[in-house]
């Protein structure tokens, strides 16, 4: 079959809502786009553990500490689901991690912001995970089978992340003046970076069109961002806090909230490596990987040794039987 025919069969499957599976023929660009997006997503889950890890030993109670640990463990699990999905496209785990550590692969820019106070744990859960969920719910229906299955699993677990975050802020919002101020401050700092999580404006997004045609994505960056603003603008009323945007206003005509301009210069600066914590995050990742090398080697050595012992014992047992 000529390549055009393969492409037609492929596109027909997509149009007919038939998932693409690892061994199916797919255009090279589809493979590349998925690989880039899934590995980037995996890296985000893994790097996302770092700002939270900072607060494990400083959590205000044992309950909050246990919740935070469970959430961080979930992020590790989500990273693993996604790395496995990406591996089905033919790239090894080592290579992906190498790309993260070399800076070649990106991860969500949001994790390049520092988590300065305990309230940030709540704000991250509510805003950052809340933004991630909207994207992830859409991705449950993405056209690449292993990615969609990983997303379904992730979405089931993610809702706890957002709820615990909101609940944690709710407690602060009813606390002392100091706690209330801390809550508002965290919202102020995380609001705009959360909006940036959805990526560049549709008019400037380079990957969107083809991704929509291939049903890798099903909603545009701006659509998802609007959905997020509408959701949060309502929820913040329950907290009795304010979003740091004077332009935020319900638009009767559109049936949506209008919101202010996003600072895209800041977005691109952080993407390009000049955010407050880019260097620190990558260094922490590299250090963990390098200092864990001996564990990986020892585990392989142990596995080889036990396999050898087992084989020797089986041979001996065989020899005894013969005799």
């Amino acid at each position: 079959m000529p390549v055009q025919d393969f492409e037609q069969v492929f596109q027909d499957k997509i149009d007919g809502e038939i998932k693409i599976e690892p061994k199916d023929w797919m255009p090279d660009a589809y493979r590349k786009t998925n690989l880039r997006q899934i590995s980037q997503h995996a890296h985000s889950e893994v790097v996302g553990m770092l700002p939270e890890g900072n607060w494990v030993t400083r959590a205000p109670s044992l309950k909050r500490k246990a919740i935070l640990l469970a959430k961080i463990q979930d992020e590790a699990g989500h990273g693993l689901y996604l790395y496995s999905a990406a591996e089905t496209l033919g790239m090894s785990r080592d290579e992906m991690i190498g790309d993260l550590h070399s800076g070649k692969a990106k991860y969500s820019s949001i994790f390049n912001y520092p988590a300065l106070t305990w309230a940030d744990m709540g704000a991250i859960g509510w805003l950052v995970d809340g933004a991630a969920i909207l994207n992830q719910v859409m991705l449950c229906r993405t056209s690449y089978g292993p990615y969609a299955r990983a997303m379904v699993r992730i979405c089931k677990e993610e809702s706890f992340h957002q709820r615990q975050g909101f609940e944690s802020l709710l407690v602060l919002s009813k606390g002392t003046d100091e706690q209330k101020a801390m809550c508002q401050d965290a919202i102020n700092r995380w609001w705009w970076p959360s909006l940036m999580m959805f990526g560049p404006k549709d008019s400037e997004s380079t990957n969107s069109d083809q991704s929509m045609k291939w049903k890798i994505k099903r909603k545009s960056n701006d659509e998802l961002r609007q959905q997020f603003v509408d959701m949060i603008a309502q929820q913040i009323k329950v907290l009795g806090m304010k979003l740091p945007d004077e332009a935020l206003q319900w638009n009767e005509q559109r049936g949506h909230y209008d919101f202010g301009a996003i600072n895209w210069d800041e977005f691109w600066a952080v993407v390009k490596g000049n955010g407050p914590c880019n260097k620190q995050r990558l260094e922490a990742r590299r250090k963990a990987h390098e200092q864990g090398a001996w564990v990986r080697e020892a585990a392989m050595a142990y596995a080889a040794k036990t396999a050898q012992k087992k084989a020797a014992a089986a041979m001996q047992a065989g020899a005894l039987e013969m005799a």
Partner: protein
Amino acid sequence: MNIAIKKFYYGDIPEEKGGTGNYQSTADSHAWPLWEIFIRSKQGLDHKHVGSLHAADAAMAIENARDVYTRRMEGVSIWVVESKYISASNPEEAGELYEPAVDKIYRHPTFYQLPDEVNHM
């Protein structure tokens, strides 16, 4: 009919279909092998494939599978098998492979028209 069951690593792409990009992984002798994970969610149900993970050996694969796939009591039993031992049919040969079943509609109960008086058969 020529039934050629080719052996692939899970998710591997036949080289001739890999496109022009070079995705060959760099060999790392310490890289842990990949395992496919199957979970029985409760007694009485089949083990179902849930995903894959890396581990040095079977015991570690089971422990990792517990941590990765059963954090919320999703399972009561775990199977692990190293991915390289999975043999799979080739999607490109699906037409020929399943063709024998296509024209045998008499294998379905609905093929048989019975009088209304015969209930529940």
